[in-house]
């Protein structure tokens, strides 16, 4: 019987929340609670020379100041790996273990005091001196490399022959797209209360993964997982930054141990920008080839994501090419994924990780193709629609993307859309309509739940799962009520305590589909136990009836055939003097994950009004239609869709974390300067669901909708802006300055048919005039020379020009080898270039000069370079290297001085 699931039930925790009775992690009261404040680095690379804590220690109320000089050893915890079962730590690095600094805002100490104000004041008295080094910062200037695997899949993917496909294509799109660093910025900052009781630790913190906190803290602190209890009943928003475990949680535990009192640690808003991850910057080159009918003949997607300096963290990077091979029917697809290693803090998944940057590039490129072919954007997608996952060659459990397009087009009024850009006006505003597809995996993980039915007819169900604010408490109550045959008011669901049966991480849109079935199974098991009791009880009116013929409603078991025959849970439990009946269920995915691909889908439609003179964009209307399987509660699901769409509006138009180009530090780590959408930025939003249960995925038929609602929003808006203005902005966020400085390109579209688009303007290189067009992966390798040397030196340039025609495969292999050596993690970039300079100098090879230049760019001093000349001379056994080297360095110095004068 399904009475509640599928109904728009009000939030069961709504009253607690609006009255302030819902208690969040930092609000738990503790006797003798001490307050701690984090100290963070103010450089991005270098080391701490001295850290003076004397004054701070003497400040009123201070109990302890912990730095790398007096911190206990912390172990590295296994790194969380997307798609992998193992770790739960958000970053591999553990704080306060050395004087080294790798990124801005790295934790370098903790001050503990009786009050927060005292801790803050004392923190301001700590004096730190650094030896600062030049950090690697930009995605274009940081060392680039191609990892083997990302998210447990090869980082490079290929099927068919893209080169042939591109040759056969009548129309080409070849463009670059980029997305910015975005920070989750939930309204509730991360906060931890750590309380020790002997060798047992209780942690109160907002987390999307209770068990993950146990795992990571056990590893870091070197204590058994069983000794750690994690409590997290309510979460004030997470969006991914509370999924994995950050080192500040361990620091709170260390501080509590040190002072022998419970300790609270709350991150400041600025620290929220340096301590708990972000959606990393990504750049893309998308090359599409299609025939005149719009059939895709080739897709080449090359992307780079900026990552931190810890190689162990690479497995945690959300790849931004993984949706490209599975989205459309196309025989020839290549994706290449690079990482750029920079002095930034670790990134982490953020709502719609992977797919949201991925589909920004892919769905904008599709829109460009639609204009180039003069085919309606929805029609183009339908012509490339696939019922089979083309990457894995297996069907989906269900795919209703076609219905999403249809319903969306109808609700939005898409048929009235003129195809020409700039064709719709509303007074001074240009109006544009754009759309994009959306997709997100629908994974399922094992989960357990416990159901207890009490003699008073009420029930309590528990799982170590989480409600991020999405409505999980509510839908679980609905599921449990239906499974037990009880009214909603008799059912209480508890989440957020690691003492409950194990639940999986709440992220990646999997909570409904993983934990929901556990509550369903636990509820049904408890019901069966009570029913069995009745069927065996000669005193029961149900005695001897076949179990198949029993139903339960409103806490009363009855015979389906003769509904007047029956009794309540209360009656039978009281008669048997049973206080409670308990059942635990463990459920999880099975073989279906191998037979089917599992994804949620969506279609996003945006209407924008652009003030063309001032470059102002407002999203006046948005329609999203989602295939998330069965919708358990249309009211809470709709709220979640609105939130996701608003997140997408921010990604498209205003959110961007800015780093100082000189020192790599975050400049706008505040909510007045990091611009989330406000009410005035959000027009009318409509969200619809196909609402077709997907019973292959899980017994509830739900696929999850938490991310699919954000993915595709930014490209739909960018496409709408193009439709309004004829301006194609390929770099997020689309701010007024970009719109007023970009020329209109309305007329270009149709002329490109059967004519590949010219390559976009590239950075100036030494041989810019003669530079030839290369396949995208080779081009990026060639670019890496330009980044390192400030231009492609003549010898490698000639190698690329010639070998690209004769043996491109050799070039690729040679570059992989070169990248392996040149961007190794054994030495830093500067040292490698210094050594190259010294070796080539000792060999008398003129290319030494290029490496001297590269070493300078990477921060080498004249002394260091000159020392290599001396070393070369000693090794070569003659004055050649110092003579030649002196010449090279003298010339280089004069060039640099000349440049400074010009700039000055």
């Amino acid at each position, binding site marked *: 019987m399904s009475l509640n699931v599928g109904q728009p039930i009000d939030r069961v925790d709504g009253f607690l929340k609006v009255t302030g009775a819902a208690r969040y992690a930092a609000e738990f009261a503790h006797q003798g609670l001490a307050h701690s404040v984090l100290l963070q680095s103010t450089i991005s690379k270098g080391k701490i020379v001295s850290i003076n804590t004397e004054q701070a220690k003497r400040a009123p109320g201070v109990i302890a100041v912990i730095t790398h000089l007096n911190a206990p050893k912390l172990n590295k915890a296994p790194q969380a790996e997307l798609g992998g079962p193992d770790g739960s730590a958000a970053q591999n690095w553990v704080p306060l273990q050395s004087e080294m600094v790798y990124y801005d805002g790295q934790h370098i100490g903790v001050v503990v005091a009786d009050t927060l104000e005292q801790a803050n004041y004392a923190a301001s008295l700590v004096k730190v001196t650094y030896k600062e080094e030049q950090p690697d910062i930009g995605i274009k200037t940081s060392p680039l490399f191609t990892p083997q695997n990302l998210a447990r899949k090869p980082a490079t993917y290929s099927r068919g022959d893209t080169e042939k496909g591109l040759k056969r294509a009548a129309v080409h799109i070849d463009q670059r797209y980029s997305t910015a660093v975005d920070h989750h910025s939930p309204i509730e900052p991360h906060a931890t209360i750590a309380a020790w009781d002997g060798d047992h630790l209780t942690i109160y913190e907002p987390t999307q993964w209770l068990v993950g906190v146990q795992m990571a803290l056990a590893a870091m602190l070197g204590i058994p997982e069983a000794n750690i209890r994690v409590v997290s009943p309510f979460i004030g928003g997470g969006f991914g930054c509370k999924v994995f475990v950050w080192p500040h949680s361990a620091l709170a535990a260390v501080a509590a141990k040190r002072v022998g009192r419970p300790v609270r640690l709350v991150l400041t808003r600025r620290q929220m920008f340096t301590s708990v991850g972000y959606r990393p910057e990504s750049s893309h080159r998308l090359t599409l080839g299609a025939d005149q009918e719009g059939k895709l003949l080739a897709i080449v997607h090359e992307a780079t994501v900026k990552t931190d300096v810890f190689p162990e963290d690479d497995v945690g990077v959300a790849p931004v090419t993984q949706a490209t091979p599975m989205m459309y029917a196309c025989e020839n697809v290549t994706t290449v994924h690079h990482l750029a290693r920079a002095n930034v803090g670790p990134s982490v998944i953020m709502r719609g990780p992977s797919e949201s940057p991925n589909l920004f590039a892919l769905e904008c490129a599709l829109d460009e193709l639609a204009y180039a072919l003069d085919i309606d954007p929805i029609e183009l997608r339908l012509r490339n629609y696939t019922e089979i996952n083309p990457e894995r060659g297996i069907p989906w459990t269900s795919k209703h993307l076609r219905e999403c397009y249809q319903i969306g087009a109808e609700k939005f009024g898409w048929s009235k859309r003129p195809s020409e850009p700039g064709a719709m006006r509303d007074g001074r505003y240009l109006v544009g309509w754009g759309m994009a597809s959306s997709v997100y995996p629908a994974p399922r993980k094992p989960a357990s739940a416990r159901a207890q039915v009490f003699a008073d007819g009420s029930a309590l169900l528990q799982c170590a799962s989480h409600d991020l604010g999405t409505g999980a408490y509510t839908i679980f109550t609905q599921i449990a009520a239906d499974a037990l045959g009880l009214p909603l008011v008799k059912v209480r669901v508890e989440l957020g305590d690691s003492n409950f049966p194990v639940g999986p991480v709440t992220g990646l849109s999997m909570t409904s589909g993983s934990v929901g079935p556990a509550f369903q199974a636990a509820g049904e098991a408890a019901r069966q136990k009570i029913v069995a009791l009745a069927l065996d009880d000669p005193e029961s009116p149900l005695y001897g009836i076949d179990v198949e013929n029993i139903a339960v409603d409103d806490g009363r078991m009855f015979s389906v055939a003769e509904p007047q025959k029956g009794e309540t849970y209360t009656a039978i439990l009281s008669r048997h003097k049973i206080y409670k009946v308990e059942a635990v269920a463990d459920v999880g995915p099975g073989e279906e994950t191998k037979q089917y691909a599992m994804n949620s889908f969506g279609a996003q439609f945006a209407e924008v009004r652009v003030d063309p003179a001032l470059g102002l964009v407002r999203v006046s209307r948005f329609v999203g239609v989602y295939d998330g399987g069965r919708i358990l509660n249309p009211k809470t699901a709709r709220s979640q869709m609105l939130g996701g769409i608003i997140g997408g509006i921010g990604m498209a138009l205003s959110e961007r974390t800015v780093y*100082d180009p000189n020192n790599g530090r975050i*400049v706008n780590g505040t909510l007045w300067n990091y611009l989330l959408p406000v009410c005035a930025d959000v027009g009318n939003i409509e969200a619809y669901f196909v609402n077709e249960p997907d019973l292959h995925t899980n017994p509830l038929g739900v696929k999850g909708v938490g991310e699919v609602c954000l993915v595709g929003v930014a490209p739909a808006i960018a496409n709408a802006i193009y439709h309004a203005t004829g301006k194609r902005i390929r770099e997020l966020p689309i701010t007024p300055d970009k719109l007023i*400085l970009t020329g209109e390109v309305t007329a270009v579209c149709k002329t490109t048919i059967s004519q590949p688009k010219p390559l976009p303007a590239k950075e100036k290189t030494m041989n810019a005039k003669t530079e030839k067009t290369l396949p995208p992966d080779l081009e990026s390798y060639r670019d890496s020379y330009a980044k390192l040397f400030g231009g492609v030196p003549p010898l490698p340039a000639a190698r690329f020009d010639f070998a690209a025609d004769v043996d491109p495969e050799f070039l690729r292999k040679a570059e992989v080898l070169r990248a392996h050596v040149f961007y190794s993690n054994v030495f830093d970039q500067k040292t490698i270039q210094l050594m190259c300079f010294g070796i080539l100098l000792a060999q008398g090879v003129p290319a030494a000069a290029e490496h001297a230049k590269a070493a300078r760019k990477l921060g080498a001093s004249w002394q260091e370079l000159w020392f290599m000349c001396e070393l070369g001379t000693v090794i070569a056994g003659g004055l050649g290297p110092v003579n030649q080297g002196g010449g090279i360095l003298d010339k280089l110095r004069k060039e640099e001085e000349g440049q400074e004068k010009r700039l000055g």
Partner: protein
Amino acid sequence: MQPFSYHRPNSQGTAIATLNANSQAFAIAGGTDILDLMKNGVKSPDHLIDINDLPLTKIEETSVGLCIGALSRLSDVARHPVVEKNFPAIAQALLVTASPQIRNMATIGGNLLQRSRCPYLRNASFACNRREPSSGCSAIVGVNRSHAILGASEHCICVHPSDLAVALVALDAKLRLAGQDGERSLALEDFYFLPGETPECENALQKGELIVGIDIPYSPWAANSHYLKVGDRAAFAFALVSVAASLQMENGIVRAARIVFGGVAAKPWRTRAAEAAIEGKFLETSTLRSAADAAVQGAKPRIGNAFKVEMMQRVLTRALVELGGAA
């Protein structure tokens, strides 16, 4: 945050005396800026003088204009009927300032004294000449998208963040300043300093002085005034570029004009060249163009803010169109 002592005097005299008696004393009214500065270690007063009990909340019409008490809240002034009718640029500027919650707290005097939103000034771990003389300017070589293109120096390129101040300069507003030696009056236009060699000297407020009121004269152009702002989101964002324009029109001809920009300099940037370009003229397309050209004379954009030159011209053109110019 540093420890400080808190005073709440109930008379103007006591407040001024307390401010004078302590070298590191600072006044607090709405607290929407000073508390943020204190929490971030940008400002560390030893004494905080709460002036909310002073009788400075009146908005009064006089024979020559309007006098707004310095402790009037932004929300009260924005909805005042005389302001809406006779000084529309003020109401418009206030309604695009911050958020409703902040407008309910923030005061008129405090709004004029808020410090720049240069992110380097507001983060004490960066070098900033304005916060700490001779420490260097991080913005000149750093992120400067929001910074000045006019009136800046090699020591500081920050901009003044107030929307209200821009509108008030366009309406010839004068400040009433009260100190130990009594009251004085100063045109708001002359109140703010350009950074020059001494970016730490931000305005003409002297030690122990309080802004107690603002006088806005009736003028033939005040009622025909307009404020227009471009920001990175629809509300609650500081101006990338804004303009207040105030025109006296006679048979389609501009008799007198005030054109003042925000978001482009360390003070509200009045441009007399642009005013001259339209005075005595019909607001034809060519006139608008020459005003726009005149407005950006002398602009020195940096890498991140070159767009502001174009934006200034577009914003001015739009504002003049709103006030009766040819579209």
